[in-house]
């Protein structure tokens, strides 16, 4: 029992630290960069989001720098690329928070709110934030190129979110007004 409680407490602590860390760094990031995303998912500095990500984490750039055979250049490159990658992940983390915030500010007034879907959304949100925290940690520890292992998990998560949220359409279509009032 004590071991179980200790494990739960440790897990809660790690998650909280990661979330808080992501949050703190987000605010620092915002303050330092002073950038404003404007259109949340739109082009950034003329680059499409996907294109931007592939450029930030590009293996080609690293290979090119390696060809220069300069340790100083490699170090500078890794430092700069790490900063850019961290900024990028923090920004996504911030956007995810904003999406969830907008969702709950609007859903709180909905009389036909679906508790199951909301709970699923909440846990997926937590998972996403946790992934962002893990990405930040990995980038800080191993650099921006050590992230391939997380690719499969994010792909799965993407599928889960699609499935969880598409359920609500079916549920709401089948629910009669009487059922909604009774619930």
């Amino acid at each position, binding site marked *: 029992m004590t071991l179980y409680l200790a494990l739960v407490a440790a897990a809660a602590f790690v998650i909280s630290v990661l979330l808080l860390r992501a949050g703190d760094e987000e605010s620092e990031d915002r303050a330092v960069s002073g950038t404003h995303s404007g259109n*949340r*998912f739109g082009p950034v500095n003329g680059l499409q*989001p*996907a294109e931007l*990500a*592939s*450029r*930030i*984490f*590009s*293996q080609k750039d690293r290979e090119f720098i390696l060809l220069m055979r300069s340790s100083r250049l490699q170090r500078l490159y890794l430092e700069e690329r790490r900063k850019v*990658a961290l900024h*990028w*992940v923090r920004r*996504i983390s911030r*956007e*995810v928070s904003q*999406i*969830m*915030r*907008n*969702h*709950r*500010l*609007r*859903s*709180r*007034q*909905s*009389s*036909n*709110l*679906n*508790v199951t*879907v*909301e709970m699923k*959304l909440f846990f*997926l949100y937590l998972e*996403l934030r946790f*992934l*962002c925290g893990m*990405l930040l940690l990995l980038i800080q520890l191993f650099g921006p190129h050590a*992230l*391939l292992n*997380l*690719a499969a998990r*994010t*792909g799965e*998560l*993407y599928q889960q*979110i*699609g499935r969880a*949220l*598409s359920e*609500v*359409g079916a549920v*709401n279509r089948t629910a009669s007004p009487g059922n*909604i009032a009774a*619930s």
Partner: protein
Amino acid sequence: MLTMAIWCVGTLAEVLVLVRGFQAKLFRRFPIFYAYLLFVNLDEFARFFVYRWHTSYYFQVYWVTQFFSLAIGSAIILEIYQVALRSYPGAAKMARYLLLVVFGAILIKALTVPSESVITWVAATSLVLERNLRIVQALAILTLVSLFFWYAIPFGRNLKGILGGYSLFIGISIIQITLLYHSWDLIKPFWTYAPSLSYLLVLGIWARTLWSSQPVPEARADIRLESDYELLVASTRDQFRRAVARLGWGVRA
């Protein structure tokens, strides 16, 4: 003498909060809270007179009135829920489910203990029973407060005061009863004054926040139709999908 002085100040503070509540017409908005405060106030006088002139009945009177006070106190939590979430049916629905889960978990926990433990629990001192009921109240408040923060529910100064003061009162009660039960020797020197002084603190919060009626900020009606919720979920799904896709791009690159 000091104990008597603290008792008098506390009773006067209760009367003050009650009078201000009637003057500011707050009792119409929070009838259960003011009924509770009135009950506690009258109860204090009743206990005082019984203690002074019918000491042999004091124990019975104390526990009977204490459990009435606990029952009305629980209704305050219901009032907080009703007042705070009146304009937020979605958040209210979520609160009902979460409270159901919390109370269900407590019930299951109580039923799954061995039978002799249940008997022991029921037969346990009134003090432990009171502490357990206070813990249930605390869990209900914790659930509600978490939900209020999650959905960014605007309280208004008055409701915030009631919620803050009552939460503090419950928290202090749990600590006091636990200490009283387990470490009586340790707290004996402070016991005469500690409960009364902490209750004065709670009354101070109520007097300050319930001095005048403050409007509760109204929420903008963003969502009206049933289809709006579906659209909202679809929109959130779409935005999440884009965010995850970007994250996926990053790690795949």
